[in-house]
């Protein structure tokens, strides 16, 4: 049916005479389809595509947005030590967090998959709670758990003779803390994805592998991982984008401190652009999130094309 709309160009001259009605109906259908997608197109064009390009333009203006200064903002950024700190921290933050989220998600998914089926729902339900709570709300709980004077963690650790740890006050601990909270928030997503993928691996494959003499580890390496490759790749890619662009957790937990050591692109862009009132400079900072996006887009487009060719 769908093909008709595309391929009904009236190639045959003699045919057009008789085919007017259906042709018109198809044209109407195609117009109707266009109108149905128009709100979507407008929304994306005006509130996503346009601002994305507008930010490119903004990045070339001076602070009062009166004058074109070319790459002036970028030159300024490259000379600032804080900027390089932000680049470093963004990469450390995103890569460490994603690696641990993926790892923990994989392990937990296996444990959930291991236990009898009737208990799985309950465990899955509990383990997904961190993902369900709005991160702004849950980060407040972490902030309270990390409180300099009343930290419940330090209270507990003091029984083991450890601490007190300055969870958000010390630069290194603060970096650890924001990553920890991000892992806490994001690992359940990986867990759910992997669990869905694990369930889709046919049981016969494991049985065949077991008959071929594969041990537990070999079964994971030769059966589970190859079968889950796609899901692992796409989940990691998603998570890398989201983590790279994270705002809520760092903003609430440390607001970039101490001494800008936990700032990542998004929080620093907010600090510079909104709090500092220099929108062009902020836009320049946030543009640095673009490369990772482009890489992801290329991978996903390639994947979609590949699927298109297969089908």
């Amino acid at each position, binding site marked *: *049916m*769908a093909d008709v*709309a*595309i391929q009904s160009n009236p190639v045959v001259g003699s045919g057009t005479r008789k085919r007017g009605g259906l042709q018109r109906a198809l044209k109407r259908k195609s117009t*109707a*389809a266009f109108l*149905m*997608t128009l*709100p*979507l197109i407008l*929304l994306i064009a005006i509130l*996503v595509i346009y601002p*994305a390009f*507008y*930010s490119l333009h*903004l990045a070339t203006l001076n602070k009062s*947005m009166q004058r074109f200064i070319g790459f002036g903002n970028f030159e300024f950024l490259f000379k600032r030590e804080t900027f390089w700190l932000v680049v470093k921290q963004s990469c450390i933050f995103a890569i460490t967090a994603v690696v641990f989220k993926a790892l923990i998600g994989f392990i*937990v998914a296996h*444990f*959930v998959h*291991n236990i009898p089926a009737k208990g799985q729902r309950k465990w899955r*339900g509990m*383990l*997904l*709670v961190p993902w*369900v*709570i*709005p991160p*702004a*709300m*849950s980060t*407040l*709980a972490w902030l*309270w*758990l990390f*409180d300099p004077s009343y930290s*419940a963690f330090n*209270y507990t650790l003091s029984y083991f003779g450890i601490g007190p740890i300055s969870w958000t006050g010390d630069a290194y601990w603060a970096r650890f803390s924001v990553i920890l909270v991000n892992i*806490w928030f994001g690992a359940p997503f990986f867990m*759910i*994805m992997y669990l*869905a993928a694990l369930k889709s691996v046919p049981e016969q494959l494991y049985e065949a592998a077991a008959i071929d003499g594969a041990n537990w580890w070999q079964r994971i390496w030769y059966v589970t991982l190859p079968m889950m490759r796609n*899901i692992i790749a*796409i989940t990691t890619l998603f998570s890398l984008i989201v983590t790279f662009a*994270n*705002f809520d957790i760092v*903003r*609430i937990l440390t607001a970039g401190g101490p001494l800008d050591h936990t700032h990542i692109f*998004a929080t620093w*862009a*907010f600090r510079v652009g909104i709090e500092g009132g220099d929108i062009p400079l*902020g*836009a320049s900072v*946030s543009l640095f*999130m*673009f490369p990772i*996006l482009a890489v992801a887009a290329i991978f*996903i*487009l390639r994947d*979609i094309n590949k699927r298109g060719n297969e089908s």
Partner: protein
Amino acid sequence: MSTLAIDKAGPTRKTKYGSMSRDRTWALRWSYFFLILFAIFSLVPPIYMLITSLKSSAEISAATNPWWVYHPTLSNYVELLTSNQFLTFFRNSAFVSVFVVTITMLISVPAAFALSRMRFWGSATLATGVFLTYLIPDTLLFLPLFKMFAVFGDWTGIQLINRWYVLLLLYPTLTVPFATWIMIGYFASIPKELDEAAIIDGASWFQTLTRIFIPVAMPGIIAATIFAFTVSWAQFLYPLVFTTSTDQLVLPVGIITSLIKGDVFNWGQIMTGALLGAAPPLIIYAFLMDYYIAGLTAGATKG
């Protein structure tokens, strides 16, 4: 030959079997052990919210065991739920979320139907584009959008910044692409013969959508609705940037800006507010977990 093989395999098979079931028992024990560990890790923050929310400020600042409530009190809840400010935040959040969900579904369901069924010039590109849009994060767009709305206000005199309803324009950029993507996936899984049968039965395209596609794809619609709601409810950056007056704030920003006054943290109330703020998504999750998870996994399996 065959007897030999059996003799050989007999005893080993027996021990093998025994060790396998023992392995299995141990694997199960380890699984439960680690699951309990991870569950504690997952649930400590929300549980600690609850513990703190039941404490008076005196108990919070006392040097007692923070993990236990010695004098439980509901005063934090009473105070918040009778405070006009908090109720305003809650009302703003509810309004924004309900409207955004409505807008999202009104845009994405017809669009997904058109993209999955009534192909037209450029529709395949548009479907891919929709998915890529979903990947563009809010943190990349908030500055140009802020400037755009400021300029728009200057030109037309319509002031959108610092009005809660500006969020009705902003949140759909986060919800619509993914909701459309989910719905394209669900609609695409409906066999083509079903709409052909409907056409032969005399249904128009609109009737096919409302009487066949929407009912059949109801699980997808529920999943997309839940997704749109949770995103709207949890969004933090846009309200932080675009709204500042106390009466225009939504819950996440409201709690943080109004309950944290300088360096003074009223932790009892903050935790109570956070818990109440987390409640709607948690309740939806508790009742519609399967739809929630379906929506979560739809993005990757269909992408």
